[in-house]
């Protein structure tokens, strides 16, 4: 059982969660590649803010690590990696191809939010001693679903990478409310994991651009069962 926290901290975390969702929606529906990347960076900043708020409210020193790792890897390292790997594609004014229009995407996002909420709803009463779980856990799961949806409908490699990264943001946003004690080794490994994933995917994007002349993966459709 964790110590009760003040209503102010709950409302701060709730506000951060709202921003986290808005930035996630931004990643999902923005038409410009650069806008998508910026929304991702803002979302990672919101995750950092939530980790700091929870660290203060719960006196959980390990969450300070999470905040530091998140900010360093996602707000600083990932954009640098992407600038190096696919700079022209990301930082030029490039419109993102997608299989589904924006209004339909928003509608699906709303449905996925409902799915996420109903999936977590039975779990929440069992976490009555965990103060921020009711805010962070559903928000995190919804973001995981939105990220998966983004990967599915975007036909652009960088935009799909953004989808993967907001899924990871979602997983961490959900879990910082319930897990404050990842062992140091796991935290360091997680810190290394994100830049490595971004670097390798960035290299793959670079190869795709070199060979096909574009980072549009929607045009890669030669492999299928005849």
């Amino acid at each position, binding site marked *: 059982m964790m110590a009760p926290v003040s209503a102010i901290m709950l409302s701060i975390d709730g506000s951060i969660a709202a921003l986290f969702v808005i930035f996630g929606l931004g990643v999902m529906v923005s038409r410009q590649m650069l806008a998508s990347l910026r929304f991702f960076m803002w979302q990672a900043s919101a995750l950092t803010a939530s980790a700091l708020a929870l660290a203060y409210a719960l006196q959980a020193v390990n969450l300070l690590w999470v905040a530091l790792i998140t900010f360093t890897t996602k707000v600083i390292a990932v954009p640098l990696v992407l600038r190096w790997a696919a700079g022209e594609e990301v930082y030029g004014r490039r419109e993102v191809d997608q299989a589904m229009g924006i209004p339909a995407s928003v509608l699906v996002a709303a449905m996925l939010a409902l799915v996420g909420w109903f*999936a*977590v709803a*039975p*779990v929440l009463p*069992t*976490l009555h001693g*965990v103060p921020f779980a009711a805010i962070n856990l559903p928000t*995190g*799961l919804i973001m*995981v679903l939105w*990220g*998966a949806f983004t*990967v599915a409908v975007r036909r652009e*490699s960088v935009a*799909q990478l953004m*989808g*993967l990264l907001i*899924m*990871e943001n*979602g*997983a*961490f946003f*959900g*879990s910082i409310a*319930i*897990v404050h*004690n*990842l*062992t140091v*080794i*796991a935290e360091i*490994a*997680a810190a290394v*994991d994100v830049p*490595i*994933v971004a670097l*390798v*995917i960035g*290299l*793959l994007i670079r*190869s*795709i651009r070199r*060979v*096909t002349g574009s980072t549009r*993966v929607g045009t*890669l*459709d*030669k*492999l*299928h*069962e*005849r």
Partner: protein
Amino acid sequence: MNADWLPVLILLVPLSGALLALLNRRAAPYFSVLAAFITLLLGISAAWHVEAQGPIHASDGLFALDALGALYLLPVCFVYFTSSLYAIGYLWARKQEQASDEAEPRYRQYFPLMNVFALVILAVPLVANLALMWIAIELTTVFSAFLVAYEDRAEALEAAWKYVALTSMGAMIALLGVLMLYYGTHAAGQAPTWNGLLRAAPHMSAPLLLLAFVLWLIGFGAKTGLVPMHTWLPDAHSQAPASVCAVLSGVETSAALYMLLRIYPALAANPGIHDPAAWYMTAGLITVGSAAFMLLQVHDFKRMFAYSTIEHMGIILTACGIGAAVHEQGTVYQLFAHGFTKSFCFFAAGLAGIIFGTQEIAKVRGLISRSPAAGWALVLGTLAIAGAPPFALFLSEFEILYTGYSSGQYLPTGLLTAFIVIAFIALAYQATRIAFGAPDNIPEQHTAPTIKIPRSSLAAMAIAFIPMFVFGFYLPAPLLHLVHEAALMLEVPA
């Protein structure tokens, strides 16, 4: 030697292999084979120790190896070794074959990457912490992406991208499940390890445990190739070199399946979760059934073996559900035997591809007359993977079906039998066409100059054939004991 050092050494040797391969490109293939061979010896020592003296716990709980982990570790070490040996001649032959192509294969990157890829697969059964296991599984995708894209052509990059996008998406979904289990074990005062999870499971909130499992099933299911998240698998296998396919199909897909198997006893131990075996049987049967029918219409022999992998992942998952309340020897033995059997199949397929210059089944006929070694290897490998006697997988599939029928689970076992038979017919039909079909019937015979089959590849196939064949009728007593101990870890008496 103190067994506590074995897990660390098993991970250090491939790392050294990767570094040496980076430093000396010319000798990289030989460093890789040496590293893989030492790893195999260390893996056998570790498994032997676990069988004789029980689980290994090392480095203050950072590493742990129990019977199920050891039984999975053995094929990983074995396939790492045979694949490294096979790659020496195979990649050289492919380079010769594609000398005129514009695309330059990533030959220089192959051996360092393969060693790191093996390292992260080896870490899955060796690390004790659930979060570290997840990281290891995530990194298997990352380090193998460029092995899949070895050819550096648009098709290979397409396959690599689908592989990375789908399996990384799965990994992110599984991550939330991992962290939920972290909370569950911590709340029950246990460490986030398999043993801790088992002890915590009866006290965990059932909805939390179930949600974590569903996230694992979807997330790790994508990596395992469970239908409908399987679409990356045939594409990646059709494009990756055969030596990479052997590792991908033989042991990498099973890494995620290993996680799904290990969570089963925790689900069964929770009083609030009713009949978790049904989840396994349902997901498994959908996968086996879909793969069996896809095998009927396949046109590419490497895709054929990829669908066979999907089928086998489904068989193992179904078997876990069927055997849970009875006994799981068939399940764990299938996990063990699939590794080296499937790698043998891809070795044979790789040689067939070199000989004919194509993977299209319709264009490949009379393989036995062109190359008896490759032809017979393909036929025997296909029969072995289809579950024909006297090969190792026959033993496990017979055990699974016997368990199902003898425990009165007629419907799932009947469906599983039907799907296995369909897959058997499809595989046997395609293999006989490839091996025995008349070469004269093909209007456009491949006219490339005859390529001599590399000796290292033949040697790797000969080594891979031994367990595939011998373990079908003879299991050394320590291995049998290990299988029995591993099975006990999944069994939950009704």
